[in-house]
């Protein structure tokens, strides 16, 4: 069964450094998302992406964050100048359509900021 894959599974970074989290969505999906889950808290929406543009973003997704689809298969989340509070699980998801269709999630990248 097709699945969303994310790399790395765990990233440890010093505060203030930049990180790039990578995702390969399901191949026939056109809509892509990033969510995060701080330990013990709800899964929170960050951003949605379609046709090489951001469709929607949350208040969390400020100028520190950016997303990109650098080629036909990868979807990346970049966090500039990381902070301690960026420590979380980051999940990538994809769907066939924006509306009424399930979003399928990868197993996440655990980001630890020291």
């Amino acid at each position, binding site marked *: 069964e097709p699945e*969303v894959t*994310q790399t790395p599974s765990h990233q440890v970074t010093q505060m203030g450094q930049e990180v790039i989290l990578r995702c390969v969505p399901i191949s026939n999906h056109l809509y892509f*998302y990033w*969510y995060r889950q701080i330990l013990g*808290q*709800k*899964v*929170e*929406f960050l951003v*949605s992406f379609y046709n090489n543009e951001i*469709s*929607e973003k*949350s208040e969390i997704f400020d100028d520190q964050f950016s997303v990109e689809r650098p080629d036909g298969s990868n979807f990346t989340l970049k966090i500039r100048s990381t902070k301690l509070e960026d420590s979380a699980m980051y*999940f990538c*998801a994809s769907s066939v359509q*924006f*509306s*009424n*269709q*399930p*979003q*399928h*999630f*990868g*197993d*996440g990248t655990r980001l630890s900021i020291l």
Partner: protein
Amino acid sequence: EDQVTQSPEALRLQEGESSSLNCSYTVSGLRGLFWYRQDPGKGPEFLFTLYSAGEEKEKERLKATLTKKESFLHITAPKPEDSATYLCAVQGGDYKLSFGAGTTVTVRA
């Protein structure tokens, strides 16, 4: 803003002991209500989509139902492998998923 509340927070069941999980929601223009299963250290795994009140979906020992204000996930005769956190999420007019905090189910043999 869309709100999702799940109860109980945790549920401990004996194998074979059926029970129900609740998801109450407020959303502007419901496009879909989604149930996911999440195992420790893994991403949410899609289970069901419900679109309108009265709709029901089933998969093995799981059955999801939907009303205008809440959804239930019924677990019939659970097995230890059904132990997981079950997440409810709603999609409203802005397309993003808003998740509840989840119900952690533990099934003892």
